[in-house]
């Protein structure tokens, strides 16, 4: 199964203030955008598990004109605190690169 890094045009992460992080997944075209919108690993439940945050704090925005999926959630470690290893949250997107994305034209057998 292909991975997100094989399908997305560009993925980035950044602080949205010291307490939140936001991840933007840019898609190259409309079919890819629809494919990623439907992907289970990009649903709130899976993201909450992957990043270890409470489900109710995971916000997902799907912007059709920009063909961008935006994921925001509170940072587990506040920016700049003693345990913080990524002050600008610039590398938070990396774990997402390897999540498998189901090809909608060839869905796996149930």
């Amino acid at each position, binding site marked *: 199964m292909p991975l997100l890094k094989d399908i997305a045009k560009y993925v980035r992460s*950044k*602080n*949205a*203030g*010291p*307490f*939140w992080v*936001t991840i*933007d997944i840019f898609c190259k075209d409309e079919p890819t955008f629809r494919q990623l919108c439907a992907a289970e690993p990009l649903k709130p439940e899976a993201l909450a598990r*992957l*990043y*270890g945050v*409470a489900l109710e*704090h995971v*916000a997902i*925005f799907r*912007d059709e*004109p*920009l063909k*961008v999926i*935006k994921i*925001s959630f*509170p940072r*587990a470690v*506040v*920016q*700049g*605190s*003693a*345990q913080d*290893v*990524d*002050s*600008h949250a610039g*590398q*938070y997107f*990396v*774990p997402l690169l390897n999540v498998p994305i189901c090809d909608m034209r060839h869905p796996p057998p149930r």
Partner: protein
Amino acid sequence: MPGSTVCRVLVPSGVLGSGCPAQAFERGLSLAPHVIAVDAGSTDSGPHYLGAGVSKMTRKAVKRDLRQLMIGRARLGIPLLIGSCGTSGTDMGVDWTAEICEEIAAEEGQAVKVALIYSEQSGTRLADLLASGAVAPLPPAPPLTKERLAECDHIVALMGYEPFAAALSEGADIVLAGRTTDTAVLAAVPLMRRLPAGPSWHAGKIAECGGLCTTSTRRGGVMLFIDEEGFEVEPLHIDNSCTPYSVSAHMLYENADPYLLKEPGILLDAAQATYVAATDRRVRVTGTRCRTMPYTMKLEGSGRVGFRTMVFSAIADPKVLEQLGGWMTGLRERLVAGITSVLGYEEDDYGLEFRPYGWNALAPPCASETAPVPHEVGLMTLVTAADQERATEIAKFCNPMLLHFPLSPEDPLPSFAFAFSPAEVELGPLHEFKLNHVVAVDDPLALTRMVHFTTGQGKRRAVA
């Protein structure tokens, strides 16, 4: 089509000190702006700048930019607005910028009317507001406590546009303000000129990072044209362009929510906004909505929690790298025991952390249990203690073990790669952000203080 009333805002850059190419700035001035407005701060670089009250930008870079803006301002006779002076917008940041402004005025022979607006808050004043029920947490913060307030070395309240409007009404040519929302600095003059809230605030949001909403982000800032129905934005530099994509995509940047933006007294809703090309380098935006909200100011607070000393060493020995996790566990046990027995410090008196760069230093969320054995690892050892002397004392105690700790006691003594001498690097104070709260006020000026003066005349006049 734009309405008849248009307000033009020249935004030279995303932050004062980052520079605007002369050619781009000159072109902006030729477009007859009503105001030059720029932000000078952010929390983006972490809690140190607010906690210590120091600027992230160097004085010389800020002076270079401020000189360019002051000369341009004087030539056109228009106001210059600068928000969040000195990075964090503390009182020290405002005074630091005012001193640079006075220096430039003297060097350029300018007698110019300056307003300073302060928004730093005392813990005791906020404790009173907290007791009166005026302070509320933002998610995911817990409710504020008096104890939490007392942990802050500096607290600032983010101002809206109203203090800028008040300063300009008093006749100021230049406004140097403490912490302000990036957007409010840019929206202030359009709102003063009674243009509608939706286009004014949305334009400010789009231009808050200067050229970041253009296709070539290192060529200076942008010009905003706000009118009755919407706004337009184009780059200052003639060889740069704004496209509907570059402008609308800016709403994603550093925003948890790309459509809703909370500003003092206002909720901006850009969900229905449309972005169309007005020319091949200029974009028109319409359809932004605004809702009036209870007037709240966001609080930022930072306090010192200790001091740190670092040792950075490197390991390339393949035998050690194959068992790096176990090696670090053994090293830690040995160091903790020694720190207790020799130095007399218990484990909860200090922090000792290893960050093995090259092998899961970014854990979590980037670490992987199955990461392959690397070729070499840079081992950052971080010691945190109540004061610098103790942090360095502990780091010095760790030094011989970091250099020679073997995989097993029977092994001959290894030596790892130290990068410098002395090996201990004092990192200074460690600050943490303490507040993620808002305070409700009846009057937008209630938590602000204003001082007026004319450069070269020494005397400053406070306005209650």
